[in-house]
């Protein structure tokens, strides 16, 4: 259950066996069925969630009821409403399971304790957050500078897993295009090769 979490951390930093045990103690397992919510808009997000198995989608809903995908989290990724988690404000996102999920959660205040106990864990999180900020920047660059087919190609290149596991309407929403546009882009890509 904890293997993937520890593997991901050890990819970036060294951990002793004792440190691995401490880390495990702070994470609590949670299961979700497909389409169950991890977080609903308006709730306070007070836990970070690591996906051991399955996938989550984070989205916001506008005044007209349209949903806009902010991010996807697959096995080995983290999820949460960062603004709510770190600003202690009601969440403006909903997070839902796209597949049955096995998750590990840590409360924000427990994580602060863990940083003190295992400095390598803080180092891992710094690297993880830095990479997330870089990914957000790339997302902004793509949404502003690229057209629909370039955005789709880049997404599939960077995360091939998306193409096989995510419903097309969610990919369209993530890219900020209509499902019809995405369908045209895909047809062109796979017919022309």
């Amino acid at each position, binding site marked *: 259950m904890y293997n993937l979490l520890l593997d991901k951390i050890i990819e970036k930093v060294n951990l002793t066996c004792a440190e691995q045990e401490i880390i495990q103690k702070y994470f609590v397992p949670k299961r979700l069925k497909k389409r169950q919510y991890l977080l609903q808009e308006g709730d306070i997000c007070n836990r970070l969630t690591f996906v051991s198995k399955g996938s989550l989608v984070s989205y916001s809903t506008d005044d007209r009821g349209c949903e806009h995908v902010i991010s996807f989290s697959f096995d080995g990724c983290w999820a949460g409403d960062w603004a709510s988690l770190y600003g202690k404000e009601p969440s403006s*996102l909903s997070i839902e399971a796209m597949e049955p999920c096995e998750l590990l959660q840590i409360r924000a205040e427990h994580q602060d304790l863990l940083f003190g106990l295992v400095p390598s864990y803080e180092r891992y999180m710094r690297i993880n957050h830095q990479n997330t900020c870089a990914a957000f920047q790339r997302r*902004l660059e793509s949404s*502003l500078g690229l057209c629909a087919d370039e955005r789709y190609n880049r997404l599939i290149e960077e995360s091939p897993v998306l193409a096989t596991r995510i419903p097309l309407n969610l990919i369209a929403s993530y890219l900020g295009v209509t499902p019809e546009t995405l369908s045209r882009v895909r047809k062109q890509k796979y017919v022309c090769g």
Partner: protein
Amino acid sequence: MYDNVLKNMSRYVTLTKEEEDEFCSLLATRHIKKKQFLVHEGQISSYESYVNEGCFRTYIIDRNGTEHNFYFAMEDWWTSDIYSRTFNTPAFCNIVAIEDSEVLQITQHQLEALMVRLPKIEHFFRTIYQRSMAIHQYRLMQQLNMTSEERYRQFREKYPEFDRRIPQKHIASYLGMTPEFFSNIRSKVIKAG
């Protein structure tokens, strides 16, 4: 020269005099004139920069040659191409001075080594990135969910100094509007108070 950056860091960490000196000894001061570049598209940029004086905008150029602003930074902000510096790849964006500016710079390489020696610095940057994740998430939602008027209202409220100092055409681009449309929205918002 280093008073501001040390004050900025003291928000999240308490450094000893020796630690402050060690950090500052790694900072290089650079003066950048208005319209000069801090980061150039196509080049690898490995610096994290603290803005001591002045103001910058980060933008991308699309295939039609149109510029799209997506970040601003002024005194007491940190700015960089975080993607380029994290993954050591050529920048997609440009960062250019809007006013005559002064930055304090440290390379990613030096920063990584320093964080290993001084966990407090790690803690500081982990905290900064955590806040940046929340801001990015908010920025994406703003782009996806809000009307033009709401976007500008929030921008004014959150960043009054940007609103005062940055040329309107750049704010229009940041908010995803034409300068003419932005001008209408702006008068409307100011009139309404």
